[in-house]
Each structure stands twice: as C-alpha cells, then as structure tokens.
C-alpha cells in the first residue's frame, strides 16, 4: 500500500518542479517532464508524453486564469494562431501514433533531444531586449487587428505594440503544433519564437499568449493520444496535480523575475537533458 503512495508523491514532486520551470519560461513543463520521466523513472515514452501533454493543459488553464487578469495575453493574436497549432497538433499526434505502432520510439527520443538542444540556441540568440525593434506595420497588422497594449511592471510604463508578418507566425505555429502533438509538449518556446521573432511582439505578450495557446493545442493532441491509449490514469493524475501546483507557484514568480536570469537557468538544464535524450535514442546507457 505504501508503494503506490510514494510513486504518486514522486510523480507530483517531479511534475511540480517541471511546472515551475515551465511557467517561468512560458512552456508547458513537458519539456523537462518527459526527459525526467523516461530517463530517470524508466517510464515508457508513450505514457510519459501522454501524461505530459494532458498536464500541459493544466499549466495553461491554471496560469491562464491569472494572466487574463493582467491583460497581457492577447486573445485575438492567440486565437488566430491557434488555427495553425491545432491543425499541426492533429498531424503530429497521428504521426507519433504511426511511429509507436511501428516500434520507432528511438526516433522520438532523438527528435526530443534535438528539440531540447535547439531551444537552447533559440534562448541564447533571441533578442536581448524586453521590447522589439520597431518594424513598419504590414497588411496583416491591419487585417487581423494585431494591436495591443499592456502595463509593464519592470519598465513601469504602458507599452503599446503591434504585430507584423502574420503569415510567417502562422507557418511557425503549424510546426509548433506538430511538435506538440509529436512529443507531447506544449512547444511554447517555438510559439514564443513565432511571436517574438516572426511577428515582432514584446517578450511578455509572446510568453503569456503562448501560455494561453498551449492549452488549446494540447487538448487537440490529447484526444488523439487518448484513443491510442497513451494516457495512463495514475501517471496522468499525479502529473496533472503536480504540474498544476508548480504552475501556480511559477506564475507568482514570473512577475518578479527578469528575462535574462530565466534564460540562463533554462539553457543549462536544456543542454543536460537534451544530450541525454539523444544518447538514449542512439542506444547509449541512461
């Protein structure tokens, strides 16, 4: 009787830590969760990604309710990009179902590791400023009403902004949705990249809007994971509760922490886990 309780507590603890890290960088927590589950708890990758994907919704909805109040999340922007992420998620989830049924799990380990490592690059090369450089509005700015404003507590002023290159953002979002369905993560970093780099939006808007979007993306993929049996009730329950606790704590910290410190901590962990995932996929230890 003690065994199941300990196992449940381990699941909660691991996912709470992942949830905190995830909320800090606008990710679903799955980025850290899946490697820890598969590498250290020896969980089958299908169950790890299933629990991760479904608990991504908990991060998104849990933290999302707080962000809506701050009025930083741009709902129109997020909703528009969801067309691509949900479509991508369906394709990604069906692809991974094909791979698992053909015993190609090792491919997923390698892809997962590479995605982790590529996010390091994204983190380090991303613009070092809170606010993007000004680019002229284009046709999509007007058509899709990509305007907004929010109060920035760090800069202590009201920030007016607008987005450009909607189509480019949309393209990146399809890919982000695909990765989300394929790997069972929120792929928030890619979503942030799509908004911050492609659409030239402020960091805070990208992060919070990404957080809103990962829930809808993950819900789409989760239903496909469900029918293929990648969701194990005990594991998913512990994970969802843990991630929710972590996200709750993470949201409290987000307002106070600066972007730079988030990026360094984040990058170090990503490199470590990324290398291990690739090695596991190639059949070396771990």
């Amino acid at each position, binding site marked *: 009787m003690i065994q199941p309780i300990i196992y449940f507590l381990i699941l909660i603890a691991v996912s709470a830590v992942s949830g905190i890290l995830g909320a800090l960088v606008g990710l679903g927590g799955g980025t850290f969760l899946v490697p820890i589950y598969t590498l250290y708890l020896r969980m089958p990758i299908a169950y790890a990604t299933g629990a991760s994907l479904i608990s991504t919704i908990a991060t998104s909805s849990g933290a999302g309710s707080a962000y809506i109040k701050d009025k930083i999340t741009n709902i129109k922007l997020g909703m528009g990009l969801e067309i691509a992420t949900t479509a991508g998620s369906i394709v990604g989830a069906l692809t991974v179902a094909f791979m698992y049924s053909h015993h190609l799990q090792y491919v997923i380990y390698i892809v997962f590791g590479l995605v982790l490592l590529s996010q390091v690059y994204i983190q380090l090369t991303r613009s070092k400023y809170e606010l993007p450089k000004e680019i002229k509005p284009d046709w999509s700015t007007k058509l899709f009403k990509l305007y907004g404003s929010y109060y920035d507590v760090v800069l202590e002023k009201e920030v007016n902004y607008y987005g450009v290159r909607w189509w480019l953002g949309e393209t990146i979002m399809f890919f982000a949705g695909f990765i989300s369905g394929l790997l069972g993560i929120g792929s928030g970093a890619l979503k942030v990249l799509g908004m911050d780099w492609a659409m030239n939006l402020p960091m805070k808007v990208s992060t919070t809007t990404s957080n809103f979007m990962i829930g809808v993306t993950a819900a789409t993929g989760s239903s496909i994971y469900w029918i293929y049996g990648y969701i*194990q009730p*005990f594991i998913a*329950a512990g994970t969802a*509760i843990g991630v929710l606790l972590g996200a709750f704590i993470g949201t409290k910290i987000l307002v106070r922490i600066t972007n730079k410190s988030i990026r360094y901590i984040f990058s170090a962990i990503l490199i470590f886990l990324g290398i291990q995932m690739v090695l596991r996929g190639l059949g070396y230890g771990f």
Partner: protein
Amino acid sequence: MDFNDVIAYSLRVGVLISAALLFIGFMLLLIEGKAGYYSINQIASTASMINSSYFNANTLIKGTVSMNPVAIMFLGLVVLIATPVLRVALGLAQFIREKDYIYSTITAIVLFNLLFAIFILPSLLHL
C-alpha cells in the same frame, strides 16, 4: 462582471474540479486497493497495461456511476481537456457579441479543429 472575468473564473473552476476528481480517484484507489478487476499495483505502475484506450464515453459514465476509482481519474482528465474547449467556445461567443466577423470566423475554425480531433477523428480511425 467583465467577460474576461467570466473566462478566467470558468478556467479556474474547471481546473479545480479536474484536480479534485483526480485526487478523489487516487484516494478511492488507496481505500479500495483496486479498481474493477485491476489491483492497485497493476494501476500504479510505470509499465501498467491500464490506459485510456480501454475507456470511452460509455465505460467512463458506467464507471463513474459505480465509483470506479480509475473512471473517476479519467473523468478528471476529461474535465481538464474540456477547459480549453470551453475557453475557445466562450471566446467565440465574445467575438460574435462584439460583431467581430474576422475573429468569429477564426475562432469557429479553431473550435472545429478541436471538436474534429475529439469527436470525429476517433470514429474515422475505427478505434
């Protein structure tokens, strides 16, 4: 009450209901030591054979009525999946009310994608 408050509130309530169901399911599992034909050790294991592929709407409702711990956990997960769907549906209502046609259309497409994945795709795949 502002519309955004309604959305924020319903998200929070959805997540809390989900977490409560997941926790109740876990506690019931501990108390009973089994769920249906499966022992707790078969369920609480990394390599467990019990997963979502055995649970559809039908078995879920039956299981919940008979207080099957695993069914209650799954119900919690269903509620969790439903929160973003509700979020999008409320967004659609908001855009229609504001007579924002571009965003009403966009949100309708997103909602379609979601419902397609949840309800139509399973029957297309014959699972």
